[in-house]
């Protein structure tokens, strides 16, 4: 009984997270979202999660089955999120792709040829724009100013780095 319930829960989590991933892919392609497609996946997975809970409740799942399915779904969601962040924004992964595409490229050439010709300068400019759009910094003329939210976030990450002696990072 225990194992059957767990298998059902894990199967439901796998099935609905796979459907959520397919829904994200279909949405991104249907609306030609390109690089903006990363914004769509939390909504797809939130819908998938709700549908999974509904299906399990209709099938008579108890608290343990719902708990197992929810935590397994959370794990799969986080694994998908990690993959998406790497695909959309992964700095190391993009360097690896560039080097694989152009073996023998020098670091100087890579600076301008980064991400298939985007270049490091444009890449970093995009990151600054994302930080502006997420309210971490704002532009004041030529200056970049950390907002209150940005200062709090920086304080948290700096404290974490100092505590674990991680160095400057980045």
């Amino acid at each position, binding site marked *: 009984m225990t194992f059957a319930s767990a298998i059902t829960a894990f199967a439901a989590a796998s099935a609905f997270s796979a459907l959520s991933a397919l829904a994200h892919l279909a949405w991104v392609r249907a609306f030609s979202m390109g690089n903006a*497609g990363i914004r769509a996946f939390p909504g797809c997975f939130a819908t998938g999660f709700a549908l999974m809970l509904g299906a399990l409740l209709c099938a008579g799942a108890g608290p343990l089955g719902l708990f197992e399915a929810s935590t397994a779904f959370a794990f799969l969601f986080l694994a998908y999120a990690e993959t998406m962040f790497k695909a959309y924004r992964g700095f190391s992964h993009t360097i*690896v792709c560039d080097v694989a595409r152009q073996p023998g490229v020098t670091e100087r050439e890579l600076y301008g040829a980064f991400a298939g010709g985007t270049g490091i300068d444009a890449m970093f400019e995009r990151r600054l724009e994302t930080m502006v759009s997420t309210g971490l910094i704002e532009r004041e003329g030529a200056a*970049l100013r950390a907002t209150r939210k940005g200062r709090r976030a920086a304080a948290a990450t700096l404290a974490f780095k100092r505590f674990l002696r991680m160095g400057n990072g980045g």
Partner: protein
Amino acid sequence: MGAEAHAVGQATLLAAAGLVVFAAAHVALWRIFPRAQGLRSLVASGALAACTALGACIAAGAPVPALIAFLPTFAACMLAYLHWYVGTWRSLSVRALEEIAAAGGSLTEAELDERYPKKGMLSTRVATLAENGWIVAREGGLFPSARARLSASAIDRVRSFYGISHAG
């Protein structure tokens, strides 16, 4: 129903206990051996914590449903922590934000580049990738390792499916 709810509570407590063991092992490892930093030490700490928690529970006679429910709970918490950990450690945006905050909250882009040079971003990351066997520097150029070629092929496929261009 009562037994199931009890098992959920036990699984949650088990996961919390596992996370405490993990945090202690992880922090101790990094503070005592800062050069041992890396994902391998993190995974090792996580595995140690999971085994410790499971072992203690089996010894204490915890019911099987709680043990089964503990596994995805602990795995999800570990993955969430990994996101936070790698993001804080490696993120270019996080570092840029920290530099701006540390400079009194405001910097021009030129000043930011002085404190956190873009050329340095690339050099540091290339050095890390070389150290971890992803790329090889020789004859003045950079070459992919076998696993880098495999990884690049997989990433290119994902990017192609999702219509991602100019990533990074």
